[in-house]
């Protein structure tokens, strides 16, 4: 594990206007499970859900999406 990842994430979020969970996950290479741990920890830094868009990344995390070839159907609204 990268040391002090929490601090870096906080810095990153504070510099952005709003952050979405997926880019955060990709940028810091954290798993879904780590993300879940992280969210309440961030509140200790005054970062609440408003700043992080949509707590559950429905569309991008959707396991069907990768397997769905129907173009018209693959339009997640969330």
């Amino acid at each position, binding site marked *: *594990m990268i*040391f*002090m*990842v*929490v*601090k870096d994430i906080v810095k990153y979020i504070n510099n952005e206007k709003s952050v979405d969970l997926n880019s955060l996950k990709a940028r810091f290479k954290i798993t879904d*499970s*780590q993300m*879940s*741990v*992280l*969210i*309440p*920890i961030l*509140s*200790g*830094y*005054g970062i*609440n*859900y*408003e700043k992080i868009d*949509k*707590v*559950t990344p*429905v*569309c991008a995390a*959707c*396991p*069907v*999406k990768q*397997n*769905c070839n129907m173009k018209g*159907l693959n*339009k*997640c*609204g*969330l």
Partner: protein
Amino acid sequence: MVYEIAIIGNPNVGKTSIFNILTGSKQYVANWPGVTVEKKVGNFSYKNEKFKLVDLPGIYSLSSMSEDERVARDFFINENPDCIVVVADSLNLERSMFLALQLLEMNLPVILDLNSIDEVKEKGRKINIEYIEKTLNIPVVATSAKEQTGITDLLENIYKVSKSSVKKTFKINYPERIENFCQKFSEINSNNSKLANYNMKWAALNYLENNSLNNLFDDKLTEKINNIDILPELKDIYLQWKFDFLSKLAENATIASGRDWSFRDLLDHVLTHKFLGLIIYILALYMVFSITFTVAAPFSDLLDMLFSSLGGWLDGKIPIDWLNSLIVDGIIGGVGGVLVFVPQIFVLFFFMGFLEESGYLPRAAFLVDKIVRKFGLSGRSFMSIILGFGCSVPAIMSTKTVSNKKERMALILSIPFASCSARLPVYIVLIAAFFQNYSALVLLSIYLLSILMVLFSSKLIQKFITQTENIPFTIELPRFRMPGLKNLGFYTWNKGKHFLEKAGTIILLSTIVIWVLSYFPASNDIEHSYAAAIGKSIAPITSHLGWDWKTNTAMIFGVTAKEVIVSTYSTLLNTNEGNLAAGLSQIMTPLSAFSLLIFILGYVPCFATLGVIKSETGSWKWAVFAFFYTTIIAYILANAVYYIGGLFL
């Protein structure tokens, strides 16, 4: 002695479901976060000991400054419960662990309850309970509120923890710098009497994390504490430690399986589709309305027959004239006329229950989030609007979790426009009388119009509130769940029961009053009764819409409860439901009836709603405002519909 047990945990993990099982109560359970908005208390006994159980609203942590989390924290500190059950979602353990750890740091007697264990099994996963137990050094139980498993285990542990006189102390090794800080912190504060109620180590850690207890330290102490170490650095170390500790715990606790998506995900994929999702949603609503007419109607007719034959059989058997009329025309005709809608009301609530229990409601909310933002609302608020289709009272109460004050105010004052179940009987009667051929369609359009009215009203009200905050939408999507029949049964009965209670109280009372007014002073000339006088008094503002005094009187008494409109019509037209349609079609034209429908949709919230508006806004002023505001808007719309409709018909 009564032991006090508290249930706490993240939103939507099944706290209330567990509470209901333990206490045998039937508190509101649904599949979206934020259902429980006020703490609920219940009792149970186990092995001859008495326990008082408190169900708290869901929270994510105890450290943020938000109101509900502060309330929960104070509860633990002041009430000092004998045992705390932290309910966690077994499929999302890591999310719950933070809160559990915070409670442990406060050195409270905690039991960890891994709920929804049935879903873990269904996914082919396993949870290593012993590992969690050893790491945290607390009792851990796995339960399923759905299948009612693990409950005895939970009870046994509650019993043991409450009875044991030596409370377990939570022992965990923090990084050295943190330990040092805690040590020095307690030395500095050893004489601080304000901290007497708090666990010293927790107070130290809280000081590091966000210092939400800051009013407990005077300037001198603060300065001393701040000199112990470089605090921002310590904070980073502390929270990073938490992250590592909890990540590791979560990682090792669940043994995952290979399969990564299921039928539910597929459902989610289709139902959350940008356009398809919305279309399916509207179709589903349409279906519900068709069913209220097709499936429920025969039962309704049956009840109607029952009441009419009861009335027919009784009629003339009572020697006293006025009493005969009161019972037959007033009570059986009026209250019976409302009761025949029991099947429709129950069907509506059954589907509302399905919507809430399956997890569809918050998905619909997400889908419309972008649209409703144009009206200054968020998808979260949209959920409250849909809840208003059941009843305005819980819908208004559910706005407690809307954090934006301006949005919340607009919502509270606009939700009365959401067409509640009490209005359903009135619609059905009017639709049966005038729009028989397109019944489901007319009903659907009324509901869609009702949503539009709420939206535009919110927009309007927000124009007058000068305060800008952005609108966060923080709801977490629950999993799709196939609602259990038992749960749905509970839900339907819980909500439908309310309708029956009203029939026995306020509707009965209003009916008697109406009967008295229609019978006196001239018992066989209703045109000269008091009821007629009341109705005629507002004729100048309604006659151009084609509403006669009977309609006026029905509207006036409908203020107590909307169903009373139906019972009033029944009494005044002196018919029961079957002929009510025929009677109604005599006294107005379809266009008048349609504008009446619109008026009923909007005008005056019922007494119960006015009461809850008062309690949620904290002032009668707003209840009075809502009274006039809704009526004026409804009147304007009814006129508009009448005149614009008149151009086409």
